[in-house]
């Protein structure tokens, strides 16, 4: 399996040749060459980054996908796997000389085993449909990205996606037992089993979150959990994000791990309330949604404790969901917060840094300062329990230079996250978007180690090239000081990481 690709191909007539090869075994309609039909594959959920691929193919059997891989390997053609295209880091953005391998037709739930509590899935199965299929057995699949109506399990594995319930139930990596992959050479490999662990290197951990750079996922077996007897939400309003941040820490310090613990700031509260009428207090500066789940007895006990804590910690009002309908309504506003913000601004740019919870107030204040510096509004709606921020930078792509400014602002936020001991991405992945900030979070030797891992799976570098890990030769430039910021505007670091907090000149523009 270590054979190197042989003849390189370019574009133009190669496209036609390759397409003809694929049409020998794939329904010709699903070997897409024309620009118009290809358009929907140009980008993922981060639509500012787009690229035209050489070809798009949609196989409908794993054998066909395997043949695609073998042919691409033979000719050294880059392959970019694609699920639903809801990614937020341009991970599924095509390569101009490459093939987009869409897994959209692999939508079958192969098996639900209610006794072993597992589901065996094709990679294109939508996240939400797993829980729907498991519901008749009183089971569900825990990781629930807000995009769960659309995103696929293959994409979830590639990004190690999280959701509202991660603090208690873990990320994708904690809920996957086995995957089948196609290697870059087109070989089928099974990783993991029905068991909870396997001897040897934990390749399952390595593949989760590998952004389509190490292999193509063709089947996934996930764990299913028993649906909790009861779930209830406490909603609490606060005068400041700082008060809300303290309340978050207090819940955890009291030995309670909520099913979900989410925060919204005033911009997000208003936008969500106008959009969904979820009953959010629009005058609040910060809102917490804390869901407790478990047995009836447990939830009743904890709801009381949390409600009391919030009141003691300066909540201006609290409300406990009195019915399942009310609980769902409270979540509706949160889950629709991105599109809601989309209504109050022509465009928004979503960041994904994660920080220690103790830094919440500090980082939100610094973001506010930067927001004034750049003259761009920000809405915050995020997984507070995990310290996973999602600042949404509001901008107008039709105003020349505004996207570039947002990108630079976003880069600064991520660098601040690293400086306070956090990281540049909690769940959305690096893709193309955060590749510059990788050089801030990791030094050259660490990045070199990542490249070595990549080479162990993909020596020719044709799986999703240009994503995830920056080329070392660019890193110095990414790390150099940014001359635009006045010293006074520079974010203050209250608890510096032991690595010097580098700042990058973020050369705006498309990759």
């Amino acid at each position, binding site marked *: 399996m270590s054979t190197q690709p042989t003849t390189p191909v370019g574009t133009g007539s190669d496209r036609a040749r390759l397409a003809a090869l694929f049409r020998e075994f794939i329904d010709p309609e699903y070997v897409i060459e024309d620009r118009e039909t290809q358009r929907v594959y140009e980008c993922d959920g981060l639509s500012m980054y787009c690229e035209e691929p050489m070809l798009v193919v949609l196989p409908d059997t794993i054998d066909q996908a395997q043949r695609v891989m073998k042919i691409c390997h033979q000719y050294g053609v880059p392959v970019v796997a694609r699920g639903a295209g809801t990614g937020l880091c341009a991970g599924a953005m095509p390569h101009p000389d490459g093939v987009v391998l869409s897994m959209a037709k692999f939508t079958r739930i192969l098996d639900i085993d209610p006794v072993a509590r597992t589901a065996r899935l094709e990679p294109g199965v939508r996240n939400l449909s797993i829980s729907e299929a498991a519901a008749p057995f009183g089971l569900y699949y825990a990781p629930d990205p807000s995009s769960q109506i659309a995103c696929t399990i293959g994409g979830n594995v590639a990004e190690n996606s999280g959701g509202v319930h991660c603090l208690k139930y873990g990320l994708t990596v904690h809920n996957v037992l086995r995957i089948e992959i196609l290697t870059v050479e087109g070989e089928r490999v099974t990783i993991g089993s029905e068991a909870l662990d396997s001897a040897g290197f934990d390749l399952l951990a390595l593949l989760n979150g590998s952004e389509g750079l190490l292999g193509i996922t063709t089947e996934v077996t996930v764990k299913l959990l028993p649906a909790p007897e009861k779930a209830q939400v406490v909603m609490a309003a606060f005068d400041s994000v700082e008060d809300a941040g303290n309340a978050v820490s207090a819940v955890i310090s009291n030995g309670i791990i909520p099913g979900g613990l989410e925060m919204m700031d005033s911009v997000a509260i208003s936008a969500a309330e106008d959009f969904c009428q979820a009953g959010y207090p629009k005058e609040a500066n910060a809102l917490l949604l804390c869901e407790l789940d478990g047995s009836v007895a447990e939830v009743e006990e904890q709801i009381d404790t949390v409600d009391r804590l919030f009141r003691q910690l300066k909540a201006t009002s609290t409300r406990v969901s009195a019915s399942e309908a009310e609980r769902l309504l409270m979540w509706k506003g949160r889950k629709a917060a991105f599109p809601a913000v989309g209504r109050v601004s022509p465009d928004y740019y979503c960041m994904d840094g994660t920080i220690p*919870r*103790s830094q919440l107030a500090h980082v939100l204040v610094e973001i506010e300062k930067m927001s004034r510096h750049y003259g761009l509004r920000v809405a915050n709606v995020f997984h507070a329990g995990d*310290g996973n921020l999602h600042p949404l930078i509001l901008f107008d792509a039709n105003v020349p230079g505004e996207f570039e400014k947002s990108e630079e602002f976003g880069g600064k936020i991520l660098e601040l996250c690293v400086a306070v001991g956090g990281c540049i991405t909690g769940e959305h992945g690096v893709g193309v978007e955060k590749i510059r*900030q990788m050089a801030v979070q990791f030094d050259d030797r660490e990045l070199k180690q*990542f490249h070595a891992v990549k080479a162990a799976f993909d020596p020719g570098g044709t799986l999703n090239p240009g994503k995830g890990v920056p080329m070392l030769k660019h890193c110095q430039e990414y790390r150099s000081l940014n001359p635009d910021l006045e010293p006074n505007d520079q974010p203050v670091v209250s608890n510096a990481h032991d690595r010097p907090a580098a700042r990058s000149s973020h050369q705006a523009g498309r990759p």
Partner: protein
Amino acid sequence: MSDISQQLTEQISDARASGTALAIVGRNSKTFYGRGIVGDALHVGEHRGIVDYQPAELVLTVRAGTPLEEIEQTLDEQGQRLAFDPPHFRGASIGGTLACNQSGPSRPWMGSVRDMVLGLRLINGKGEHLRFGGQVMKNVAGYDVSRLQAGAMGCLGVITEISFKVLPGPAASHTVILGGEDPGAAVSIMNRLSARPLPLTGACWLAERGVGRLYLRFEGARNAVHSAVEQLQQEFPESESMRADDNFWHRLREHELDFFDTEETLWRFSVGAARDLLPDVPEDEWLIDWGGAQRWLRGSAYSLDELNASLPVGAGEVSAFRRGDREGEVFPELAAPVKALHTRLKEAFDPDRLLNRGRLYSWL
């Protein structure tokens, strides 16, 4: 309580220069595990101490040589714990616990040591001290090199520092014992209960003086434990409660139960929790833990390959946990492409094969 990472880095660089194989030694609690190897000892046990602990963050950062006992004491003072409840096997360090991927009886419900890792520092075979992951709950920047160390048995590098997610300890704990079940029925009860929203954190079957006993532990909020135990007592009126001073779970975790008191080879089955019992041997040669997902078998008459061949494809695998032939393979054979990936990953982290050469597999 000292940081000897500089010294460790130099030792590895020196070994590289002279081409000397190194055998990583933590606190010597798991010398029995993996294959027997030769190499100059690289002692990590002195690299110890808690680097950072923020109870409100649920994050603990600790040097790899730190004894579990010290960590657990520190956490206990704050009402927190390592949710994966690792075996100490007389003095284990946290680094060795991760390298050998060791978790205790609560593992299926509370997660494993691998699940709780947030980030770590590692010296690779080139003598480079690197940092991966982080000290925050979620981090998907770069490949998950941190979790890759779980079960790698030091073959990819010397772990020097680890950050973990820790959890609050349970307010209440109660164990119910069902007597007389045969192992097949026990596996089926364990799976049935696991599919219900109960605060189950332990499910183990074994034969005690010839009689099958199924131990079921419930932990969590007081009310939740109380109502679970009530439900169970209604369903199984013959059940009894374990005495509060019975340290069954501790003895199980530490392999101190009579079952483990043997000179025979101890085989570990890591299998799908609902799988039938295989192979067909006398009941009391089995101990079934992890709600069916980890099963122990005693006996020196078996071979690794035969036991693995007896399992249906995809059901899991068997390894030789203690005793038996430690010069031969002790972990199941890998499929060819997976084996190739192991060789290439070893090359990526430790190109000269200096670190724990042969500890995991003879060829690695």
